[in-house]
C-alpha cells in the first residue's frame, strides 16, 4: 500500500504583516523544491517559504518513512532536514532562503508523496528497536546482502565525488568574556560584562539577537529593540549571529562556528575565553502520544515562530494543549491571525490529550473526555529542556528539579564558567535581564581579576507540571523513529540503564542529539522501571552542540611545505618530485640509472639540503658527542670529520651522520633528513635535563646552508675550478676531512670529503641564499666534465651498491646497533653513552637479527623490498630491507635483516617473493657490493 498525501483542505498561506516579522516583502526570491519552482521572501527560512506556499511534508522518517513536517521550527527540527544543491542535511527550518536554491527532500522514494519505503509501516512493530540484533542471524553469509538492502533506507542526504572543497576559515580570539546565547539574558550579560570593561564576544545561533523576545508581543519587541540597540552600540561587544558555540573544552577553549559569511562558507573561531557565560536558553520539548509525529502537530514555540517571524499561518483549525504560558501565548497568536482555535486544553484543569489521528497528516484529536475534534493543527506546550552541554563540558552534572520537571545545572561550575537565563531559571523579562547583567558583570570581574563581588539576583526554575507521555504511546525520537513502546520493551529486556537503552534503541542518537528526545527517553524509562527520573539520570551530552562541517573543522589547508634553495632549478629541469615529510625533493630527472652511471664515470651533483645540520659550539661539545654517539669523539682533530650512530636508551638505532670539527670549540653535526628535528630535540634534552653544566650551544642550521653532494671521479676537478682558497688535493684534503672556504665567490662554505655514494665526493654547504647560484655554476662550469644532476633514486642505488644502510629502512623500531652490523663502531668500553647497557647485553647474547649484504642467484631478479626470508618450513627468518638492480655491477643487490645464525658469508637463504615464488640468495661477506675496500671514495 502506498500512502498518499491529500492537499490540505485550505492552502496554508502567508499572513498580512506581523509586527516582528523577519521577511522583507519587497525582496522576492525564487527556488525549487524537488524540482518545482517556488517563491519566498528574503528573510524566510526554506521551511517558512515552503509552508507559505502550502507545502507541509519536508522529509520522511528514517525507519518507517512516515511523512514529517515542522515540529520545533528551529535548527534542531528533526523533520526539516533537506538537501540543498550538493550540501546534505541542511536544517531547513533554520537556513535562510537564497535566490536560486535547489532544495530537495532527502528521503522518500520515488517521491515524498508516494514513498515505497513507507511500506515499512506495515511491518510496524516488526522492526522495532533491537530488531536487527535478533534477526538475520542465519545464514550468516547472507548478512552482507541484508545489509545492502538496509543501507538503502539510510537517512541523510547525498555527497558527490565532484563537489568542490569550498572555502572555510578559522581564527583565534581572546575575549575576556564570551557569552553563548543572544537571548535577553545573554544580551544583558554581554552588556553587563562590556560595561565593566571587558572585551566581549556574544554568540547567537539564530540570524538575529533576541531569542524568544523575537516572537513575543509588542512589549517583548520593544524590549528587544532596546537591548539590541544597546548591544549594537557598544564598542566592547563583538556580535556573532548565525553562529553557535559548539563546545567548551578544557581551559575555556571555546569553539564558535560562524555560518554563511560573505567570503567563506563557515568559520571556526577558537576563543580562549577568560570567562564563559552560558545563556543557551531553553528548548521546548515534545509530548509523547499516539500520532505525535503527524504533520500538523507542532510545539507552541514553533507555531509562534511561524506566525510572528515569518507571517505563516500554520493551520486553519487548531487544538492547543497548553500546560504553560507559551501554550496560552500560541493560542492567542493563532486566534489573532485567524486560525480557529477550537479548544485550548489545560492539563491543570484536568484536560487530557489522548491521541492525534490522521492519514498522512493531522485530521482529528482525541481528548481525555472522549471527544474527537476535527482540526489540522495541534499545538503542544508541555515544558522545557535546558541544553546543558556547555556547563557539562565544564564539569557540571545536571540535576533533576522535580518541581520544575526539568534537568538543571548541578551547581558545580569552575570559576571561569557562569550561567544565566533560562538554563538557570525562569522569570519575567526584567528578572532574566537583571540576572544576565549581574552575571555578565561578575564574569567580567573574574576575567579582569577584580576582587569585588557582584550580587547576582536569584533566578529559580518555575514550577511546571511533569508531562512527558500521554496514556497512549507515541514517538520519542523523531529522527530515529523510536516509539515509547520500543523503550518500554527494551527496558523489559534488561536494557534498563539510560546508556544501555540509548545504545540499544538508538534513541537520542539522531541529528538533534537528544535535545528534543532525551528527557522523554528518561521519563519513559523511569516509568517503565518504576524508578524516579532523578534515579534514572540522564545521558552524557557530547559535543558538538550543533553539527559542524568537516570543512570548517579543517579550515584553510595549512600543510607546511619546505623547499631547498635549488627547487626552482629542479622544477625547470624535469625533476620528478617526491614528498619526503615536509620537503619536496627530486627523485630523479628522467633516468636514474643513467644518473648512476654518470656519477660512477664522470661527476654528478645532488641536492641534499634537507640534511639535518646542527651547529655545536662550546667547550663541552666533545662530551656531548661522546654521549649521544655510540663511538668515541674525544680525539677528533680540527679539520676532521667522523661517522657516528645514535641509539635510544633501548639500544635501538635512531640516527646516523657525520660530525666535523671546524674549530677547537666549534663542531658541525649532520643528521638524516627525516631525523633532523628529532635529533635536535634529543640533543637538547640531554643537555638541558641531564647535563645542564655542560657548556654547549646548539643551533639548527638545516636551512642556513644549501647542501650539495658532488660525487664522481671528476668531482675534485669540478670543485677545484670554483674554489680558489682551499687545496683540494688528496694530500692536503683527504677522506673524512672538512675545510671552510670560498666556492664560486661565495665565502664561508663548508666542504666535507665524505661519500654516501661510495665515490670520491665532496659535500658542500653553501650559505643558502647562494645555493641556487652555486648549483648553476657547478652545472655550467662542469659541462665539459659531463656533470649532471642526480636524484634520490640514484643515490639510493649507489648507497646500496656501497652497502650503506638507511636508518628506518634497513633498521626498524627494534633494531639495536649490533643488529645493524655496527659491532665495529660501538665502543662498549666508553664510560657511558645513550643506550649502552642494552648494547652490552646484546653483545653478550649475540642473538637477534643481523643486517647483511645479499645477492640473489638470478642476477636480474630484484626481490621487492619487504620480501620475506623463509625457512623450508615457511618460518620467517628475515626480510629484504633494500633491493635494487645495480647498473654499476650489472646485477641485483640487496641488504637484508636475517637471523644471526644465517648471517655468515656464503649462506644461501630462501627469499619468498610477493608473487609467491621462492628464490635463493647468498649472504655476502660485506654490506658493500661495490668497492668494499673504499678505494674510490678515498681516492
Amino acid at each position, binding site marked *: 500500500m502506498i500512502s498518499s498525501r491529500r492537499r490540505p483542505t485550505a492552502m496554508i498561506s502567508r499572513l498580512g504583516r506581523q509586527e516582528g516579522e523577519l521577511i522583507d516583502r519587497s525582496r522576492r526570491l525564487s527556488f525549487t523544491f524537488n524540482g518545482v519552482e517556488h517563491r519566498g521572501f528574503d528573510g524566510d527560512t526554506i521551511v517558512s517559504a515552503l509552508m507559505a506556499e502550502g507545502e507541509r511534508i519536508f522529509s520522511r522518517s528514517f525507519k518507517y518513512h512516515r511523512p514529517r513536517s515542522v515540529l520545533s521550527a528551529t535548527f534542531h527540527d528533526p523533520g526539516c532536514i533537506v538537501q540543498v544543491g550538493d550540501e546534505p*542535511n541542511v536544517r531547513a527550518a533554520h537556513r535562510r532562503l537564497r535566490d536560486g536554491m535547489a532544495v530537495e527532500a532527502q528521503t522518500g522514494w520515488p517521491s515524498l508523496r508516494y514513498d515505497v519505503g513507507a511500506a515499512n509501516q506495515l511491518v510496524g512493530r516488526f522492526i522495532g528497536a533491537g530488531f*536487527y*540484533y*535478533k*534477526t538475520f*542471524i542465519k545464514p*550468516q553469509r547472507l*548478512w*552482507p546482502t541484508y*545489509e545492502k538492502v538496509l543501507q538503502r533506507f*539510510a*537517512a*541523510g*542526504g*547525498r*555527497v*558527490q*565525488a565532484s*563537489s*568542490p572543497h569550498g572555502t*572555510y576559515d578559522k581564527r583565534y580570539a581572546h575575549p575576556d568574556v564570551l557569552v553563548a546565547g543572544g537571548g535577553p539574558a545573554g544580551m544583558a550579560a554581554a552588556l553587563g560584562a562590556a560595561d565593566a570593561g571587558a572585551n566581549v564576544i556574544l554568540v547567537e545561533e539564530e540570524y538575529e539577537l533576541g531569542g524568544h523576545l523575537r516572537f513575543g508581543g509588542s512589549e517583548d519587541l520593544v524590549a528587544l529593540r532596546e537591548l539590541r540597540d544597546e548591544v549594537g552600540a557598544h564598542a566592547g561587544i563583538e556580535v556573532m549571529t548565525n553562529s553557535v558555540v559548539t*563546545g567548551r*573544552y*578544557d581551559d575555556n577553549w571555546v569553539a564558535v562556528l560562524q555560518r554563511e559569511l560573505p567570503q567563506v562558507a563557515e568559520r571556526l573561531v577558537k576563543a580562549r575565553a577568560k570567562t564563559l557565560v552560558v545563556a543557551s536558553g531553553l528548548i521546548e520539548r515534545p509530548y509523547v502520544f499516539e500520532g505525535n509525529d503527524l504533520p500538523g502537530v507542532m510545539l507552541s514555540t514553533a507555531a509562534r515562530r511561524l506566525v510572528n517571524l515569518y507571517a505563516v499561518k500554520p493551520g486553519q483549525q487548531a487544538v492547543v494543549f497548553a500546560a504553560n504560558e507559551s501554550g496560552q501565548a500560541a493560542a492567542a497568536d493563532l486566534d489573532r491571525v485567524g486560525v480557529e482555535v477550537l479548544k485550548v486544553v489545560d492539563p491543570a484543569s484536568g484536560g487530557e490529550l489522548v491521541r492525534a489521528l490522521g492519514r498522512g497528516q493531522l485530521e482529528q484529536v482525541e481528548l481525555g473526555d472522549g471527544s474527537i475534534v476535527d482540526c489540522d493543527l495541534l499545538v503542544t506546550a508541555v515544558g522545557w529542556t535546558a541544553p546543558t552541554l556547555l556547563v557539562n*563540558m565544564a564539569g557540571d552534572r545536571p540535576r533533576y528539579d522535580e518541581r520544575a520537571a526539568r534537568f538543571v545545572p548541578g551547581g558545580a561550575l569552575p570559576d571561569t564558567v557562569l550561567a544565566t537565563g533560562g538554563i538557570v531559571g525562569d522569570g519575567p523579562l526584567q528578572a532574566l535581564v537583571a540576572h544576565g547583567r549581574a552575571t555578565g558583570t561578575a564574569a567580567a570581574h573574574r576575567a579582569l581579576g577584580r576582587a569585588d563581588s557582584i550580587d547576582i539576583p536569584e533566578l529559580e526554575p518555575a514550577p511546571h507540571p511533569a508531562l512527558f507521555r500521554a496514556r497512549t504511546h507515541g514517538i520519542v525520537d523523531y529522527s530515529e523513529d523510536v516509539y515509547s513502546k520500543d523503550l518500554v520493551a527494551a527496558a523489559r529486556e*534488561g536494557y534498563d540503564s539510560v*546508556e*544501555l537503552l540509548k*545504545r*540499544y534503541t538508538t534513541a537520542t542518537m539522531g541529528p538533534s*542529539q537528544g535535545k528534543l528526545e532525551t528527557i522523554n527517553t528518561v521519563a519513559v524509562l523511569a516509568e517503565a522501571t518504576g524508578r524516579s527520573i532523578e534515579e534514572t539520570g540522564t545521558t552524557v551530552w*557530547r*559535543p*558538538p552542540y550543533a*553539527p559542524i*562541517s*568537516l570543512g*570548517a573543522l*579543517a*579550515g584553510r*589547508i595549512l*600543510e607546511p611545505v619546505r623547499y631547498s634553495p635549488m627547487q626552482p632549478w629542479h622544477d625547470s629541469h624535469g625533476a620528478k618530485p617526491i*614528498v*619526503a615529510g615536509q620537503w619536496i625533493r627530486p627523485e630523479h630527472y628522467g633516468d636514474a640509472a643513467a644518473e648512476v652511471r654518470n656519477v660512477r664515470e664522470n661527476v654528478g651533483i645532488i641536492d641534499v639540503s634537507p640534511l639535518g645540520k646542527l651547529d655545536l659550539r662550546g667547550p663541552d661539545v666533545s662530551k656531548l658527542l661522546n654521549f649521544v654517539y655510540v663511538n668515541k669523539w674525544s680525539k677528533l682533530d680540527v679539520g676532521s670529520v667522523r661517522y657516528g650512530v645514535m641509539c635510544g636508551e*633501548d639500544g635501538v638505532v635512531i640516527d646516523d651522520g657525520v660530525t666535523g670539527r671546524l674549530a677547537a670549540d666549534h663542531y658541525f653535526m649532520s643528521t638524516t633528513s627525516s631525523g633532523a628535528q628529532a635529533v635536535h630535540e634529543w640533543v637538547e634534552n640531554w643537555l638541558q635535563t641531564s647535563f645542564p653544566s655542560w657548556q654547549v650551544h646548539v643551533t639548527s642550521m638545516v636551512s642556513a646552508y644549501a647542501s650539495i653532494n658532488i660525487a664522481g671521479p671528476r668531482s675534485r676537478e669540478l670543485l677545484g675550478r670554483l674554489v680558489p682558497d682551499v687545496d683540494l688535493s688528496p694530500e692536503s684534503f683527504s677522506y673524512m676531512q672538512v675545510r671552510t672556504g670560498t666556492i664560486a665567490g661565495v665565502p664561508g662554505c663548508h666542504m666535507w670529503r665524505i661519500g654516501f655514494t661510495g665515490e670520491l665526493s665532496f659535500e658542500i654547504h653553501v650559505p643558502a641564499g647562494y645555493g641556487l647560484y652555486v648549483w648553476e655554476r657547478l652545472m655550467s662550469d662542469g659541462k665539459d666534465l659531463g656533470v649532471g644532476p642526480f636524484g634520490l633514486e640514484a643515490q639510493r642505488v649507489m648507497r646500496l651498491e656501497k652497502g650503506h644502510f638507511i636508518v*628506518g*629502512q634497513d633498521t*626498524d*623500531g*627494534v633494531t639495536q646497533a649490533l643488529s645493524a652490523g655496527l659491532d665495529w663502531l660501538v665502543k662498549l668500553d666508553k664510560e657511558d653513552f645513550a643506550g649502552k647497557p*642494552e648494547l652490552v647485553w646484546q653483545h653478550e647474547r649475540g642473538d637477534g637479527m643481523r643486517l647483511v649484504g645479499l645477492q640473489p642467484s638470478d642476477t636480474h631478479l630484484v626481490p621487492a*623490498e*619487504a620480501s*620475506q626470508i*623463509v625457512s623450508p618450513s*615457511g618460518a*620467517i627468518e628475515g*626480510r629484504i630491507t633494500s633491493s635494487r638492480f645495480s647498473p654499476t655491477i650489472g646485477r641485483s643487490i640487496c641488504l637484508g635483516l636475517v637471523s644471526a645464525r644465517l648471517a655468515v658469508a656464503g649462506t644461501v637463504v630462501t627469499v*619468498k617473493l*610477493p608473487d609467491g615464488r621462492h628464490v635463493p640468495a647468498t649472504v655476502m661477506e660485506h654490506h658493500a657490493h661495490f668497492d668494499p675496500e673504499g678505494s674510490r671514495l678515498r681516492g
Partner: protein
Amino acid sequence: MWRNFELEKSYDVVIIGAGVHGLATAYYLAANHGISKVAVVDKGYVGGGGSGRNTAILRSNYLTPEGVRFYDRSVQLYRTLAADLNFNVMFAPRGHLTLAHNDSSLRTMRWRAEVNKLQGVDSEVITPEEIKRLVPFMDVSDDTRYPIIGALYHPPGGIIRHDAVNWGYARAGDRLGVQIHQNTEVTGIRTEKGRVSGVSTNRGEIGAPIVLNCTAGWASLVSAMAGVKLPIITHPLQAAVTEPVKMFLDAVVVSGSLHVYVSQTDRGELVFGASTDPYASYSMRGSLEFTEELASHVLELMPSIAKMRVLRQWAGLCDITPDFSPIMGITEVEGFLVDVGWGTYGFKAGPAAAEAMAELVATGRTPQLIAAFDLARFAEGRLASERGAAAVGH
C-alpha cells in the same frame, strides 16, 4: 538479556571489567571449560568502556607472525559469532585499506602483506587505480600534499556492531550461569602469601582463587591493587561520527601517515578515529583539536565531503605498552592474571584473547597463541616488534 544478582561470597573466578574481554572470557570459561561460577564485575555498565567507544573495525593484517596469528583467530571467531551467540553482531567484511603516502610506508605495507600471506591471511599491496575503484571518493591524484601511492588491501577486514558483541557475550554468558555485576567497583585486590584471594568492591567482599584484570584505561591502577606494576601509559583515544549520508564508502580506510581512519556505518554515518592523544590522560572529555586534525586529514583523502558535518565526538582510554602489543597471562602474584595493555587494538582482539585466557584459567598453561605477549618480556628485553610499524593502524 542478562540478569541482576546479589553478590555471592565467593566465585571460582572473578573477572574485573565487563567489556568484550571480560564478558567473552566468562563466556568461554563456561562454554568451553564448564567453569561457570564466574563473576564479571564492572564499576559501570556492560560495554561502557573501550568496548562501547571504539570504532568497531576488525582486521588481522598485523606485522609480526605472532600478531597476525593471534588476530586472525579473533577474526575467525567473529565470523561465526552471531550464530554462536544467537545474536546478530552484524559483522560486515567490507575490506580494509591502509594507505601509503610514501615509499617507506609502502614498504611497511608490503612487509605486512608478506607476513600476512605466510600466515594464510589475505592481504595484498594495491595501486592507486585499484584504490580508486574501491573508494571512488578518494583523491588518488599525485598533485595532493600527501599523494597516495598504494595501499595494503585486506579483504577480510571490516566493521561490526560493537554493542551487539558485548551484549551477545553477556547474554550468552548469563545463560550459562555467569553472573554479571554492573555498578560494582573493585576497590582492592586481596593477596595472601603471594597469591590472590579475592577482591573488595563497593558492594562487599568476594573471595576467589583466580582474579582476571580485563580492564582498559584503568589496567595499571587495577593491577597496582594486587601489587603488580605494568609498563603502561594511559592515553585517551578519540572518535567522532558525522551525520548520515547515503552510502558512498564501502571499505574501511586507514591512513597511518595522516593519522586517520574512517568507515561508513549502515546508518550512513562516517565513523572516524585518529591516533591517541599526544599526552597521557584519564580525561574522556575530548578535544577540539582532535576534530580539527581529523577533518583536515579526511579532506586530504576525500576533499569532496567538506560539507558533511560532525555530529558527535567522544573519547575512550587506551593503555599503551612500549611495544604496542598487549600483555596477557600470568603475573608474579599467583592467580592474578592480566589481559591488558591493548592500546588501540583491544576490541578486535576480544574473542581470541578471551578464548586463550579462559584456556589459561582452565588448564593452568599459557596457550601458545599468546605466549609472545607475556608480562615478563619487558624485564627480559624481548619486546614484540609491532613497534617496527608503529603508526596508527586501526
